[in-house]
């Protein structure tokens, strides 16, 4: 119906045109863009090739596509107009203008303007292919340092670079950058006083050697790979051994594991390094995305979900490609045909989930496991006791029904059936039983976090160690045959197209000349080939992408600004030659990330002041040419860690299962739905040394982020985060100025600092200026008077934690009292436990912890 209107207006105009020109101008471009991807280029779905008039006349499985002179009787017209059984294109609709043009053209005899056989590959412009070409070889006369490359561009624009930053600023910048924590006052002072020529180099090496370095840079990597400790969706079950992958990443950075090895372990550690436990843990990377399969899931769909996730996850992480765009149709901007997408996906077709036993390594922190296991078992035991009581009740009801007094007297099978069918238990009671059963399910899954198992994959099912939940059935490894992989036009798993064999992306061979390796069709060895192909020093993307990521975290912007998109739609590199030079150095250094850091930090560019020169402000306000340092707000984790560090409360503990930080109380007490019932209440870790650990060690629950992290642009673990945003929203002020955590940390800081000067030193790493000292002194006096007049009440006992759920059985509200904080909960300092003087110091501290100086890096 809706199409009639435009047709009325358009057709007369179209009729006036030369039909061959009409075809050339209005039809052929659309065929190329929307049709040939499935019908003629790379694939010929439904046996229909649309590249030539002859082929259209011949048609496909449904017969001829066009009947010249009779549009209404032509399948092509019917399909796009929606007037026949076949509707095309599969996604979206043909524009009314196009439909009208096709009608006029067919009715006019369908003249063909020119030979239409096109090569999609030749449509790409060289400038859009920069990332797929080999690294530029060094030329005589090339610059030979970061600064020389940058200086060349600055000179072209006649921009003067900013002078070096002062030493305090510089040390703070580097310490936050490399360790994610602010320097202590003593460190700053020592550096400021060290006038030896090697002072900076020494400081950089000290920071790179710090175990805090891996925690900081590991977090960057976890952003890219979408790390979380749970599956997401309905049950959001824990991935109980995922923490071993998180710690593996931290160790890899701390040990400067060569990047080519690092990536090979994550893609195919199980195949390439079969005896190496680290390499098995590393494969947890392949399962990092959100994924769940329940009784309500469709197996073909959840399997496809994993395959799609891992395919574009690997491409985004290591190759900087938006391969996901080629899932439904050929990539619109980059030379990535859909067929390549599914060929790469076929590499993972034999990758199955596994959770095999793997003894803990000496480098893993296992110190809390025994106590953690015992604690969780005790809670789970209480829950099981409730379930047992319900089971007893069901059996008692069955006994009454059968007129017997002992369970043993029940007819065979009745006891088990009574428990299974919850004999005589009404909907109200059942709601309670369901809660216990749900809690039990969740605890049972979580208890595995204390067991020496790996969250990993295997090629083909790993007998006895398959994973994915009770609803998935795996064949025995010996009976397993690799599944066929088909192109899925439109990404639709229900309508498979052409079958494909596993293979790597063809653009690399085409544009970089690196021959595409044969990927075996066997169960094992597919990923090994992929990993080796990506790790090949001749691969044009691998080193460029990683070098660019590292550069971006140092300077706030990559040389190519879109770290996950090196294709046409990504930003062009500002210094392409520098990027290639760095990539080549990176490879030549044995893929050493630490050497790369060192090279960058020792450059003049890194050490510049954040104040732009006048020429820079005029010519390059966005600072693309790095004439000065671009200031930025610290990331969410750095903010929380700095808060704890300033308060002297940051725990040095590292590694092991995720800990539960102190989060906003309302969120902690909020009931969380889990399929059919509720999750147990959120409880912060009782001991300070656990809950006050660095943020990277906190438990990452997909369906419930720490609101403090979330509000400061913490990344969603549902997609790869290439770069953090730093939006400024008022709810950030609430989180940092009003939250219990901020107030507690300000008080803890004040209690450790006896003077105003000490408060400044702890919070900002420097003593106050005389002016600040006087302002702070006034504020302190004012607040002291306030606190003397308003003494705080004692610490209140926590209110009982009542969770409600709207029952799906009765439609009514049910309440459950949840487990509250345990008795051994180690409380934070309370205002009633300190003097009014300290409380007033805490007010000064709170303001300092909220200040822009605290939140920004210069």
């Amino acid at each position, binding site marked *: 119906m809706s199409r009639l209107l435009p047709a009325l207006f358009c057709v007369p105009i179209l009729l006036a045109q030369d039909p061959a020109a009409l075809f050339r101008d209005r039809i052929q471009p659309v065929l190329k863009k929307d049709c040939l991807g499935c019908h003629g280029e790379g694939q010929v779905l439904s046996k229909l090739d649309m590249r030539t008039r002859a082929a259209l006349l011949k048609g496909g499985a449904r017969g001829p596509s066009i009947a010249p002179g009779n549009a209404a009787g032509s399948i092509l017209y019917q399909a796009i107009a929606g007037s026949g059984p076949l509707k095309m294109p599969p996604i*979206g609709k043909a524009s009314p203008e196009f439909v009208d043009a096709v009608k006029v053209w067919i009715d006019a005899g369908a003249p063909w303007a020119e030979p239409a056989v096109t090569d999609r590959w030749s449509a790409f412009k060289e400038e859009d292919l920069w990332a797929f070409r080999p690294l530029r070889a060094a030329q005589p006369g090339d610059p030979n340092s970061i600064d020389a490359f940058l200086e060349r561009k600055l000179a072209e624009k006649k921009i003067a670079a900013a002078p070096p930053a002062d030493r305090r600023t510089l040390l703070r910048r580097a310490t936050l950058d490399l360790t994610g924590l602010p320097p202590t006052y003593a460190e700053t002072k020592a550096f400021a006083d060290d006038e030896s020529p090697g002072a900076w180099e020494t400081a950089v090496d000290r920071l790179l050697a710090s175990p805090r370095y891996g925690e900081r840079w590991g977090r960057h990597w976890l952003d890219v790979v979408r790390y979380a400790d749970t599956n997401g969706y309905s049950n959001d079950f824990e991935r109980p051994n995922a923490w071993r992958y998180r710690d593996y990443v931290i160790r890899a950075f701390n040990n400067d594991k060569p990047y080519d090895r690092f990536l090979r372990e994550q893609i195919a550690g199980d195949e390439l390094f079969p005896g190496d436990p680290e390499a098995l843990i590393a494969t947890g990377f392949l399962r990092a995305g959100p994924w769940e399969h329940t009784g309500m899931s469709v197996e073909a769909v959840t399997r496809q979900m994993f395959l799609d996730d891992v395919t574009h996850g690997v491409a985004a992480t290591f190759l900087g490609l938006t391969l996901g765009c080629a899932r439904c149709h050929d990539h619109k901007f980059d030379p990535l045909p859909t067929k390549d997408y599914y060929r790469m996906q076929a590499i993972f077709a034999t990758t199955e989930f596994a959770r095999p036993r793997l003894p803990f390594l000496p480098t893993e922190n296992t110190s809390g496991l025994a106590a953690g296991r015992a604690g969780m078992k005790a809670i789970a035991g209480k829950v099981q006791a409730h379930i047992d009581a319900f089971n007893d009740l069901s059996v008692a009801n069955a006994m009454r029904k059968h007129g017997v007094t002992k369970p043993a007297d029940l007819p065979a099978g009745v006891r088990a059936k009574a428990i299974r069918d919850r004999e005589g238990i009404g909907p109200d009671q059942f709601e309670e039983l369901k809660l216990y059963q749900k809690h039990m399910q969740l605890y049972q899954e979580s208890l595995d976090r204390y067991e020496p198992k790996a969250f990993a994959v295997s090629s083909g099912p790993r007998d006895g160690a398959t994973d994915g939940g009770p609803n998935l059935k795996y064949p025995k490894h010996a009976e397993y045959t690799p599944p066929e992989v088909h192109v899925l036009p439109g990404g639709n798993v229900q309508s498979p197209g052409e079958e494909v064999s596993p293979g790597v992306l063809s653009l690399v061979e085409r544009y970089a000349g690196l021959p595409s390796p044969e990927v075996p069709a066997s169960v094992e060895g597919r990923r090994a080939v992929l990993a080796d192909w990506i790790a090949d020093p001749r691969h044009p993307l691998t080193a460029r992408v990683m070098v660019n990521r590292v550069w971006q975290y140092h300077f706030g912007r990559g040389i190519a600004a879109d770290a996950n998109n090196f294709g046409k739609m990504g930003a062009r590199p500002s210094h392409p030659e520098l990027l290639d030079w760095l990539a080549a150095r990176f490879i030549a250094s044995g893929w050493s990330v630490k050497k790369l850091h060192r090279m960058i930090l020792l450059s003049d560019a890194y050490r510049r002041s954040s104040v732009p020169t006048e020429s820079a402000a005029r010519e390059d306000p966005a600072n693309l040419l790095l004439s000065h340092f671009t200031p930025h707000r610290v990331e969410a984790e750095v903010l929380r860690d700095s808060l704890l560090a300033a308060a002297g409360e940051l725990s040095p503990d590292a590694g092991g299962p995720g800990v539960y930080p102190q989060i906003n109380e309302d969120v902690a007490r909020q009931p969380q739905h889990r399929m059919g019932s509720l999750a147990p209440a959120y409880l912060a870790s009782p001991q300070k040394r656990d809950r006050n650990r660095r943020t990277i060690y906190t438990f990452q629950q997909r369906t419930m982020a720490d609101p403090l992290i979330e509000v400061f642009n913490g990344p969603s673990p549902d997609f790869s985060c290439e770069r953090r945003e730093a939006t400024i929203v008022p709810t950030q002020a609430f989180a940092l100025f009003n939250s219990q955590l901020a107030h507690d940390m300000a008080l803890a800081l004040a209690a450790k600092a006896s003077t105003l000067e000490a408060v400044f030193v702890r919070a900002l790493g420097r003593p106050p200026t005389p002016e600040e000292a006087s302002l702070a002194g006034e504020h302190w006096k004012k607040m002291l008077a306030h606190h003397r007049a308003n003494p705080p009440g004692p610490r209140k006992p926590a209110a009982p934690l009542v969770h409600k*759920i709207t029952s799906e059985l009765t439609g009514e509200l049910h309440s459950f009292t949840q487990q509250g904080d345990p008795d051994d909960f180690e409380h934070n300092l309370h205002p009633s436990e300190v003097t009014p003087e300290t409380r007033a110091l805490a007010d000064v501290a709170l303001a300092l912890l909220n200040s822009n100086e605290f939140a920004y890096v210069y």
Partner: protein
Amino acid sequence: MFTRKSAIQFAAPTRRELLFHSGMGLGSIALTAMLAADRARAERPLAPKKPHLQAKAKNCIFLLMEGGPSHIDTYDPKPKLNSLHMTKFAKERTKFQAAMNTGDRYYVKSPFEFRRAGKMGIEINSLFERFAGVVDDVCFYRGLHAESVNHPTALYHLNTGNQFGGDPAIGAWVGYGLGTENQNLPAFVVLPDVAYPQGGAANWSSGYLPAHYQGTPLRAQGSPVLDMAPPEGVAPERQRANLEFLNTLNRSHAAAHPQHAELAARIQSYELAFRMQAEMPNVLDIDKEPLAIREMYGISGPDKDAAAYGRRCLLARRLIEAGVRFVQVIAMGWDSHDHIDKAHGVRIRAADRGIAALVKDLGQRGLLEETLIVCAGEFGRSPDNGIRRGGQAWGRDHNATAMACWMAGGGVKAGQIVGATDETGLQAVEEVHPLKDFHVTLLHLLGLDDNKLRFLHAGREKQLSQTGGELIRALLA
């Protein structure tokens, strides 16, 4: 309009670029002030924006019925099921079906009475006593198809257009497209039920859109916005004094870094936060409403469940009135696999009064014309059920091919039934549209063109409908 440039306009370098290109020098405090004023304009991503198209509706209240309300037991009765009741049949398990929907099945009739309502004479569940009185303002839509029969994926699909989650919610898209009228309040507010729905806060996430557009859940108890108030025992004068001291520190810091314009925005954000802290309690104070209004919403009635829902509906109206752009009200508990007579009965009674009062109240105030009300669950329910707990239960499974949904308000064809389901209610068969078309239509009613409301993310111009959809014209006035 929604090009790559606008997507990154919140990034500091671009703003600086703008300012420095206007030829200003550096260094003076006065300049800092000018920068701040200029930035205040650039920094208001929530400022009202012109819609793409002329539309009556400016605001939206989305009544989300979580769990999958049954169309068959609400407003799409199926008398055919009376004769099929408890007839057994078997459904084969295929590769594309969940375990839940296969095996031995039996048809289930509706346990409810139905009665005709409104001029159109739609048959609706008799328990909708009050809702029956306003159906002439409502357009019932029976042609909608979802895709997933799994709660979280279906909820994500309904709320964000993407089954797998992580994308911006409709409310975030609307805030991005239209901005909001009251800069002291969030653009997108969510009023959750007693528990968060499956999939959690991702149901109101801003996804890849900037954080300004994220849904703010207002809690029924405690602080409505997280940490809007300081911890108990912190007196207002103490908080104010601390803020003033903070501002003094920040001002002298900004003076020392005049080149860094972002600092002014952060100072402002603290002030905005405290304006929100002052304004929000007034908006939320429903005791300010006349008794008759409170009674209309059933807030002081004996049915606590209905009172709680009525309270959320009244809050939704107050938030819209105060200039919030998009409010989502969640009612949970519609997942009636067993005892649908009781479970759906209680849910319908709890929702009836609040919904009817909302439609009526908005109408009386002349706000219905500029407000779009949408009511939907993540999917509908099946005409049949499987074996439950070893026997037959009077309930229904999930069904993505037919569902219960309606719209009312600005631009909606009121007093109509659009589309139809087959004789058992298994599938929509007339005016059938996928969910993405529903999304396109919802945006259209608010003056937004889904094809223009785009954001570049991960190399793709993304949009609510994912790949573009079709307008459901039959729903439009």
